[in-house]
Each structure stands twice: as C-alpha cells, then as structure tokens.
C-alpha cells in the first residue's frame, strides 16, 4: 500500500465517521430516545402512583386507538435533570409529572408549558372537583399550568404508641408539651424524634411548620414574593431559635444527620422502637406499612397534627407538605397531542377506577366529596384523617424547596442543615438566607 492511497482512505474513513456521529446527534427527534412508540408521550415517576398511571393508560388506550397515551417512568432524582435537559433541548414529552411551585414556574417562565386555564374554564365539572388550595400550587398570575394527578401529601407527626405509653404521655398538642415530652423520653433512655437529616429536606418540615405556627402563612408569602429582608422576619428568627432549642435539648435521635430519608431508616427507627416520634410526609405511612405491616395492623402507629405554639399567629389547622404531583402539558406539543393530553387529564384522571386505585395504595386524592369512598377503602382510618386534614386546612403550604426557585431552595437546605448541625446560629441563618435571596 502506498502512503498516498492510505491517506485518501483515511480521509474518507474519518469523514464518514464524523458524518455518522453528527447524524446520530441529529436523529433523536421529538420522542427523546424513540422508546415511546406511538401515542402521546407522558413522563412520570416510578414510585408512588406508578401502578395507577399504568392502569389508567391501559384503560384509556383500550377504546381510543387514535389518541393513545404512552407512559415512560423515571426515578425521582435523575428525572428532574433528565426532564430539564430534554425540555431545554426541545425533546421533552407532551405530558410531564412535576411538583408545581417554583420548579414548574421556571418551565413556565421559559415558555415551555401550555396554559390550561381555558380548558379548565370550559369544563366546570373538571375544575370544581379539585381542591382549590391544591390547584393553587400550579397557578401563576391567575393561569393554571398543571392539574393534580395523585394524592395529597401533608406532613404529620407520627408516633409510636407503645413508647409514649411507657412515659404515660399523650401526643404533644403544643410546643411546650413537645419539649416536656422530649425530657421525659430522654430520662427513660428513649430517643425522642427520628429524622432523615442526611437528606436535608426533612429538616425543612420543622422550619415550615414553626414559621407557620409563629407567624402565619403571610411570613412565607413575603419570602416567596422576594420581599427584601423577609428571611429576617421575627417569625423566621423565632422558628430558627426554636429549632436550635429542640436540637440542643437532644430532641433528635443520635446520628440524625447521617440518616438518609431515602432508605426508610428514620421510619425504621420509629417502628423498631428506637425513637418515639417522626415528622414526615403522608408517604411515611406507606413506608412504615411496608417496613412493618404488623406494627400498623396492631394499632401501634399513631399520628397527629403539628403542635401549636403559644402566642403564635398561625392557625393550628394549617398544614405544610406537597400538595400533590401535577401533570403539565408541553407548549411544544402539536394541536392533536395537546387535545389528547387535555382530554386524558379531564376524563382519564380522577375517574372512579382511578380514584379507587389511588385509595387502595393509601393515596388520598384532592378531589371533593370522597368521604363515602374513603370510608370503604382499605386504610380507612388513615385516609379519612389525611382527607379531612387537607379539606379543612385554612392554608396548605407547598414545601418551600418546591415553592421557591431551585437555586434558592438548594441554598436553603444547606444553610438549614448547618443550623441543625449547630454550625451557624439562628441569626446567621436568617442573615445568610437574606443574602442568598438577594442574589
């Protein structure tokens, strides 16, 4: 082979390689990986309501060969990044699951989400069956960009009835009760409260509830509106001081900062009798029930609302948590895809079989007039409690890390972690958050 020939061959080969590479980059198309098959593509999460989604798609597709819904499922944390990358690159799905709040708003601000207000107004029966407090999480400037698709997830205080009985105590009604109870439990050698502190967001539930109980919902409304100095509000400072008080009193089980919330260890501490209480979202019931069905069926699991604070402005019926997960429709969808998506959200979601499927799973949908259905469901006690909690709440505050922008939410979690670790004082916490919010 002469050098000249091989040179030409090489140029051809490398040109071919390059063309192929570029072609591969350009051919992925709208369905993001092409695994979607035919039908309108929906992206959703694996945990929680996956079974309900799957069943509803099967039922929906049976009679509608022309407007099928195709689901793809993803794990929670990778999903957030995959969705952002795909939507940013114009390869997103038609329907996507989200948490409402600041996360959804960043998509709305980028013009990636279709406005559903007109569709909802055209069908009052659809709009009116949903709890307004829940729909609020996906409403920006009076326009609705998403509808709830699974259950409400308020945060409640779980407790181990046996352990509270050992010290002869009732679940705490006020903050002072809680502090007294911590002392009693510690005297008996029982860890008062377990918490998945390594995941950081469980820390936030304490701050959310305390700020609400001390200052009422307006305090966070100011923060969310980006009001200057809102983090130094006396209510926030007081709440941060109360957290420090509880940490210093030894309220949280030893090593709480290395317990991960994702592995169910905090729940395990509760049902194995290592800790007496746990502040957790309503999904905690499912984790406990899976981890130790006997513990639940023997009636050893108790639940209560967050204690009130003497002299505080917040109504004790106020709750915090995730209002629900939402489905939003991509603004880049074709007219036909959008029509399919909207009619699925209207008629395929929260119909009778859908609601039954959610209830069977222990999920309580934010849909009006479900009392009879819930009474007949498998976890009737628990489900009715959650249902009435969500229905009667004066205010249902969306988790702050969801309500704020992802950027500020992330700073908040880290600074709060430092507060729980005792690395910064309550005053420093407020000052650092004001600084982060001003960025």
């Amino acid at each position, binding site marked *: 082979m002469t050098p000249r020939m091989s040179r030409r061959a090489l140029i051809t080969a490398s040109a071919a390689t390059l063309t192929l590479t570029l072609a591969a980059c350009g051919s992925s198309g709208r369905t993001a990986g092409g695994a979607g098959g035919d039908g309108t593509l929906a992206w959703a999460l694996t945990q929680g309501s996956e079974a309900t989604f799957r069943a509803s798609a099967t039922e929906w597709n049976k009679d509608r060969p022309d407007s099928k819904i195709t689901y793809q499922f993803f794990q929670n944390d990778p999903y957030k990044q995959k969705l952002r990358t795909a939507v*940013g690159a114009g390869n997103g799905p038609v329907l996507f699951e989200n948490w409402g709040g600041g996360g959804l708003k960043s998509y709305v601000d980028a013009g990636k989400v279709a406005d559903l207000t007109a569709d909802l107004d055209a069908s009052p029966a659809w709009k009116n069956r949903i709890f307004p407090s829940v729909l609020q999480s996906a409403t920006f400037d009076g326009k609705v960009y998403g509808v709830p698709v699974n259950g409400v997830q308020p945060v409640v205080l779980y407790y181990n009835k046996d352990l509270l009985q050992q010290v002869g105590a009732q679940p705490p009604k006020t903050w002072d009760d809680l502090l007294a109870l911590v002392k009693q439990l510690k005297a008996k050698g029982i860890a008062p409260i377990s918490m998945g502190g390594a995941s950081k967001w469980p820390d936030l539930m304490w701050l959310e509830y305390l700020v609400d109980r001390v200052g009422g919902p307006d305090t966070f409304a100011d923060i969310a509106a980006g009001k200057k100095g809102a983090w130094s509000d006396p209510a926030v400072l007081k709440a941060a001081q109360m957290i420090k008080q509880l940490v210093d009193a030894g309220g949280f089980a030893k090593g709480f900062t290395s317990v991960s919330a994702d592995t169910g260890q905090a729940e395990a501490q509760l049902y194995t009798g290592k800790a007496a209480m746990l502040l957790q979202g309503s999904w905690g019931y499912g984790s406990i029930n899976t981890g130790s069905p006997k513990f639940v069926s023997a009636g050893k699991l108790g639940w209560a609302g967050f204690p009130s604070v003497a002299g505080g402005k917040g109504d004790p019926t106020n709750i915090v948590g995730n209002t629900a997960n939402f489905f939003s429709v991509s603004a880049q969808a074709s007219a036909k895809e959008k029509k399919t998506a909207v009619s699925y959200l209207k008629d395929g979601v929260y119909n009778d079989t859908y609601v039954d499927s959610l209830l069977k799973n222990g999920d309580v949908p934010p849909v009006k007039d479900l009392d009879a259905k819930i009474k007949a469901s498998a976890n009737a006690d628990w489900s009715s409690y959650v249902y009435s909690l969500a229905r009667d709440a004066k205010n249902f505050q969306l988790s702050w890390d969801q309500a704020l922008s992802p950027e500020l939410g992330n700073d908040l979690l880290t600074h709060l972690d430092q507060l729980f*670790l005792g*690395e910064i004082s309550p005053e420093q916490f407020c000052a650092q958050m004001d600084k982060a919010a001003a960025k």
Partner: protein
Amino acid sequence: MSTAKVSASARHSGPPFLMALPALLLFALFALVPMAIVVYLSFTHWDGLGSPAWAGVDNWREALTSSVTRNALWLTAKLMVFSWAVQTPISLLLGVFVAGKQRYRALLAVLYFVPLLISTAAIAVIFKNLLDPNFGLGAALNLPILGQDWLGDPQLAFYAVVFVIAWQFVPFHTLLYQAGARQIPASLYEAASIDGAGRVKQFWHITLPQLRYTIVTSSTLMVVGSLTYFDLVFVLTGGGPGYSTRILPLDMYITGFQSNEMGLASAISVVLVLAGLVLSLALLRFSGFSRMRSQQAGM
C-alpha cells in the same frame, strides 16, 4: 543534540499525521468543542431552559469570591494531600509485601484486590450502610467506638471519606508497586546480603530507590485523580453535612444540576480543568517524569 536530530528524522519517517486524524477529530468533537462551550457558558446566566443570557464576569466574580467555592477548593486540596499521605505508604508496603513469591502472599494478594472489582457506587452504598450509627457496623457488633456518627458529624465526615477512598484505591496502587517491586533484579538483593545488609536496610537502599518512578507514577495518578473524586462522595455524603465534604467536582455538579445555575457551574468547571492542567504540568516538571531513564543501566 543527537536526540533532537533523531526525533526530527523520526517525524519524517514515522506514520503520517493523517493517521492521528480520526482520534483528533473525536477528541475535538467530544472534548475541545464542549470545553469551548463551557468557557462561553461561564460568561452567561442559564438555568438549562430557554437560552443563555450574557452575564459578563458575574459568574467569575462569584466563583472566585464566594466562600462556598473557596471552601470547595480548600477541601479538594486537603483531600488530595490526605489521600496521597494515607494511600502511598500503605500501598507501597503492601505492594512490596505481595511481590514476594510465597504462596500465602499470592493468596493475600487476591484478597487485597477485591475492592478493585466493586463499582464505586456499590462501594459508597455499602459504606453508607456500614457507617450508619443506628443500623451499621457499630450497632451490629455493639462496639460504641465504631458507632460514631461518621457521615453525619462535620468533623468526622471528611476523614470517613478519605478512608473510603483509600479503601477503594489502595488495591490499584498496590498492584503498581507489586509490579514495580517484581522488576527489581534479584542480583541487587543478593549483592546486598553478601555485603551484610539486613531486610530493613535493603528496603531503604534498594527497594525504595528502585521504585522511584513507580512512586512518581502512582502519586501522579493519585493527585490528578483526586480532582475527579465525585461519584463516591456524591453517594456517600452528597457534599454534606453542611458543606463539610463539598469538594470542587461536587460543588460544580450541585451548582449546575441542582441549583440550575449552569453559568456559575461552568466557571467552576473551568477552574477545575485549569487546576488539573497546572497540577499535571507541575508534576511532569518536578518529578522528572519526562526525563525518565532506565535504572538498570549496565546490568
């Protein structure tokens, strides 16, 4: 002089430059182009959606002045030093030990190399569970000393990370030292024992000097590698508690993919690239890596 001439003529008679073209094209497409884009992004504000907005030097000012990034740089440097100081002596001694020809040493060598076979994520998950204060090793064996809050205490978490990294990488470096030690000619040791040198003396005066270049290689890998520790720390602590294990690669990831500040994250990643370049150039220069010669001339 003569070497210069040789290399100049080699340039003419060696394979044509075109042979490198496919590799260069791929390198340009997947390394240089993205890097250029990252440099561009570092001057913009971008949340991953919509289009990047020009930001001037905002991100750079933030990256160079923020206490978070500075802390991340400091932690990365500290991790580098600690990793080197912990891993080098252990793997050197282990490597020399398993270089011996005895059967039992071969068996032990196989055991030492097991961590090499486990993926990083698996190692991190395993240690996360072992180090758990409530359900981990300390609780299982009822040994309070092991039941410390290893990953939840800001003072301890960093050292726990150093330990787990050492556990993962010592086998690899042991392998390097084993190979190096086996290359040392037996005649050197024979001569030394005739001269009356004991084991310790032989180690200091023959093994160690002969392993000089292995030490350089292994140290380079450790130092440059410590800039890229990401997966293990991410799964083990996620950068926490607080900021206590938030090393530079993690800081970049969290800023970019959790806070969605792609511009700032790009600036951090440029810093990371520069740090890596400077370090490897410095190592090449000061270690004599580029001037390496055979140590066995005349044997």
